[in-house]
């Protein structure tokens, strides 16, 4: 089963007691943003509601998804992630938008 690397913001790592910058999850294909987030929330229930809405599953406005240096925030969550992600070469980056001051 492919191992997916996920890079989370500091506050979410602290909330879920995740050491280091990244975590790794084993996820069966097909691997999409939706399946990664579903597995992430299943593994770390503390993160439910912090990345996407509980009910609608829409991305929270101030978070972005980056895949191989591309902004995937507005991609369909059902789009399959590229090989560099699914083979663990690159992490899926979940990033807090730089906002405020």
């Amino acid at each position: 089963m492919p191992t997916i690397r996920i890079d989370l913001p500091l506050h979410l790592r602290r909330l879920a007691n995740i050491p280091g910058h990244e975590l790794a999850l084993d996820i069966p294909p097909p691997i999409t943003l939706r399946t990664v987030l579903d597995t992430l929330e299943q593994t770390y229930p503390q993160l439910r509601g912090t990345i996407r809405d509980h009910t609608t599953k829409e991305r929270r406005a101030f978070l972005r998804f980056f895949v191989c240096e591309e902004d995937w925030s507005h991609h369909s969550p059902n789009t399959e992630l590229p090989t560099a992600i699914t083979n663990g070469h690159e992490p899926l980056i979940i990033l807090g938008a730089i906002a405020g001051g």
Partner: protein
Amino acid sequence: MSSIRLLVGTRKGAFILTSDGTRKSWQISQPHFPGWELYHLKASPADPNRIYASQTSSWFGQIIQRSDDGGLTWSPVDNNFTYDGVPGTHQWYDGTPHPWEFKRVWHLEPSLTDPDTVFAGAEDAALFKSTDAGASWLELSGLRTNRTGPGWQPGAGGLCLHTIILDPTNPDRIVVAISAAGAFRTDDAGLSWKPINKGLWSKYIPDPTAEVGHCVHHIAMNPRTPNTLFMQKHWDVMRSDDAGDNWTKISGNLPTDFGFAIDVHSHQPETVYVVPIKSDSEHFPLDGQLKVFRSRTGGNEWEPLTNGLPQKDCYVNVLRDAMAVDTLDDCGIYFGTTGGQVYCSPNAGDTWTAITHDLPAVLSIEAQTLP
């Protein structure tokens, strides 16, 4: 000897301040949940080591934390605040219909008798209840869906339910306050609600005596006299002696009756405290002088309390949940400022000392008196 534990919510984390009963020397914890806004923390009256905390962020949304050991360790509990049924709309600032959207929890009010029961006041205005220590939340939707709900409009800080008062003599009675809808009361444990705003007068709304639409900033009650409520409205300090059915103005000789915080002495139900703020457009004390005003007569006659407070160049605000009282014999009064100061008076307001000058902006303070 008794001790005091202050639960301080700030813009950048929570802090727990502790002292023995002399309230002279304080220990300040490391920040809990650093970087997050902690709108409110409150302990269960039935189990002082059970504390609930509202942790929120524009980025990551709402988290509710629970501690079972007096704030030493915390665990996140359920953060799913879903409005009951089809939520419908309230009014937006411009008077157009706007869908109800959950944003954050402003205030947590644990049950007076059951540590596992806690109420949460939300923005957009709604009241939620958990009976399993925060493991799940259900909306008491009779409040939001009462006939006036679609006409509620947000205040400048949002359409927030920020005050929850439980009647110690009547478990079915709850009073809440919403900016800028007003005050509401249930007498059937949250099934049905009615506006309790008779006597309020708000010059900035089309009908100054309207049934709803008043920007109530905070309400305080002494548990010994649950029918007597004291209110800091946007402008005006008010009191009610019939659980909110009727209100009368008690601003009296206050230099300005705008403000946010209000509280009542633990042992003297007619001794009331407010912190007058210059105006709704200038959120700082008059003339740069930070003054708490105390009335020993239930209002109208107020005395400034300044001993130990900065009397020049002070331009902080004191927010609605940022004042608290302890229950020691010599009642302690506490308040926090948007400048990060936390002040303590161990003698009912006669003298003040700063416990700290250097926290992030203070959003809320609760005082626990521990045996």
